[in-house]
């Protein structure tokens, strides 16, 4: 066995320390060591987006990053999204539009969609579809997800 690596990082605004194996992914660290199981594993190869998180604001797949790489960075996961227990507009719109069926892809899609709306407050349907192309959903056919994101964007523009 290789020696563990000691990592200090920030997750959802909180200082976090852990020891991980050198080849352990950030996804495994989040889920197995830190109990942050809202981030899901659907493929482990960057093809499904269920493990989406942001690192320093940049959207990534946590299955494609080593836990050791998190040193000194700021990680945000689904668990940090509803600040103070209040759902974000985006989360609420997913409920209102029935933008989920089984819900396994939902955390990843919310993290990805939030990253989009921070970058582009008025995305077109096509832009939303291409941005979310890396987030597989097998239940919904995407229709209600796209509607939820578009509607959230529209509400957020109005209240901005």
């Amino acid at each position: 066995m290789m020696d563990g690596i000691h990592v200090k990082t920030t997750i959802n605004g909180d200082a976090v320390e852990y020891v991980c194996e050198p080849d352990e992914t950030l996804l495994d660290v989040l889920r197995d060591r830190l109990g942050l199981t809202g981030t899901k594993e659907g493929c482990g190869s960057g093809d499904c987006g269920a493990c989406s998180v942001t690192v320093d604001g940049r959207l990534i797949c946590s299955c494609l990053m080593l836990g050791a790489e998190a040193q000194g960075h700021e990680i945000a996961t689904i668990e940090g999204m509803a600040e103070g227990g209040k759902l974000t507009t985006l989360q609420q719109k997913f409920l209102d539009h029935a933008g989920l069926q089984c819900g396994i892809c939902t955390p990843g899609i919310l993290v990805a969609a939030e990253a989009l709306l921070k970058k582009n407050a008025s995305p077109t349907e096509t832009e939303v579809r291409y941005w979310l192309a890396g987030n597989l959903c097998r239940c919904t056919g995407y229709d209600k997800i796209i509607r939820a994101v578009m509607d959230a964007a529209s509400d957020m523009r109005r209240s901005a």
Partner: protein
Amino acid sequence: MAQDSKLEARERDFSIVGTRPNRPDGIDKVTGKARFGADMAAPGMLHGLILRSPHAHARIKRIDTSKAEALQGVKAVLTSKDLPDLTGEDAGLKDILINIMARGTALYDGHAVAAVAATSKSVARKALSLIQVDYEVLPHVTDVEEAMKPGAPLVRSDLITQGVEPAPSKPSNIAKRHEFGHGDVSKGFAAADAVIEHNFRTEATHQGYIEPHACLANLGPDGLGEMWVCTQGHYMVRGTCAALLGLDVSKLRVTASEIGGGFGGKTTVFIEPIALALSRMANRPVKVVMSREEVFRASGPTAATSIRVKIGVKKDGKVTGAEAELKYTGGAYPGSGVEYGAMSAFACYDLENVKIVGWDVLSNRPKLAAYRAPSAPMAAFAVESVMTELASKIGMDPIDLRLKNAAKEGTKAPYGPTFNRIGLRETLEAAKNHPHYKAPLTKNQGRGVACGFWFNFGGNTCVSMNLGFDGTVSLAVGTPDIGGSRASMCMMAAEELGIPYDKVRAIVADTSSLGHNDVTDGSRVTFSTGLATINAARDAIKKLCARAAKTWGIPEDAVVWEKGHAKPAGGNAGKFEPLSLQQLAAASPSTGGPIAGHYEVNADGAGVSFATHMADAEVDPETGSMRIIRYTVCQDAGKAIHPSYVEGQFQGGAVQGIGWALNEEYIYGKDGRLQNAGFLDYRIPVASDLPMIDTVIVEVPNPGHPYGVRGVGETSIVPPLAAVANAASAAAGVRLTVLPMSPPRVLKAIEGRAG
């Protein structure tokens, strides 16, 4: 008795049914709190991993696990010798046993051969690499037509074809012959003005649920066990694991986790008995989670098929004869489900002369599991392609041709029985009247229409409803909620009780807390769990009325239930202020104790369902690339309880069908190994591939359900293969008969088209 047969669908004003409230599990699912299969841990938990055959067919000469056993941190190593055969005469269970761990022969690439449990994932991985397996590679076959040929490599050495008289004397890969139909097809074809016959092929596809199979199992030396499983049926998991491991059913408590998609693929077991057996060996909890690669190689994809369809029509569009021969292979085990393809193939049509023959064929592929209306989409692809060709041959509108022959109440279905009230015609008319059908198309675009049918069913269902002293209601159901069924159940309970939706909370109870429930499959939950919920509510209402009667000192039958209140039935019953559910619940300790409602049934009368889909496709004629640019689903839901989730089922099924039609396929190499065991090359549709999916909910009530519900989950995947094929064929100017219609196939067909 079929108690529900007395219940009649009736027109009524619903106050909650038909609205779109937020689902009770919604907040947990948008905040990451919901716990799915892999999200659970236990004290002292070990990690289990499974070693799988790299060969399509091989004799296992020897397995040496000694090095793995010696590795520090390894707590259990399991091979088939640790799983004695307790299946007795149960051939189906025996096949499951063989499938979860190869017994002497690996039957497909990915077949489990050994398993380990260790203190960490990395130790478990290391242990797997230390297990030495000596294989003798055997000849294999993966193609259905090849597997049927005399002299094909035998997948199982002792398989004698059933359903053929006289019974063959030699084994083959053909498990069963099925035949359905009525009338005389040769007479039918003789009377036709136009006859078209085509051969079709479809490759195996996978349900593609995003959550890999996962379970956490704990079994002590006293035979008491607990499991946490992502499954469509935790009672099924309990029963199967208990039977395979020789346990008492009631000593095994199985909890269904939130489930990240199933679509039929989680209606059986793969890793669950292994996790339980490892736990028994190690005397510690063991968690097993499949990798995505394992999901593709070793769970249950669909059949791969070869289908011939021949249909004859009169000039006026009346079908005079219809015939199909279906060959399905569902892996190295009997049970390709070809009979459902055969039964459903022509079920949309009222036919005098129809004959369908189905062949169940074995090959060196993983053991098939159900996938949403199992086996029907491929048959519909073939039949609906020929129907559209016939329409253009006789110069008739494709919807009109279907309307001319559409099955209706009183039609004798090709699989035997006579249909009750059904809604096919209504879906066809909805499609014909939809603006989509009249929208103009441009160059390289084509439109396709197709119909689809699915049986739906009910099954064993048990529901319990408990009233809190504060008048809120907890509802325990035993059917895992895949797509929002807890919301529908709360709606039906609230509707029946006459209380607000948010006063009811539904949970999926574990196997020790509620009686047996069949698997969430066959589009049965809104129908049968809904039916049981309504009746459990009626049972509770009866008790509430009795308490009111007791309170008022009048006979029980002098009390009625209206809008959440017990009331005297009329002037003669006496004059009393109505008592609300809340008041009755609060008073219940002093009127006889807690109030609960129950219902148990083996539900029948699910009501078949039909759909008509329309697709517009656009082809790039230089590359064969095909895009779906518009899509509309018209389906009979009987009665939509929560319309958003009904639409969601329509849309999800349609898009799975689009994927099946265009890009999804199991690709086997010459060595019989699966070449695309990942989401990179098993190409399910991504958001940018698709347009919005329009829906029309048709409501022709099912007489077998108190609210008229028909199952909606499965039918939506039946028409899209054909609807897309018809659209794509129109766009490409050539009939496409092989799925998926991947760009190389389409380009080749375009270049080969006549003229």
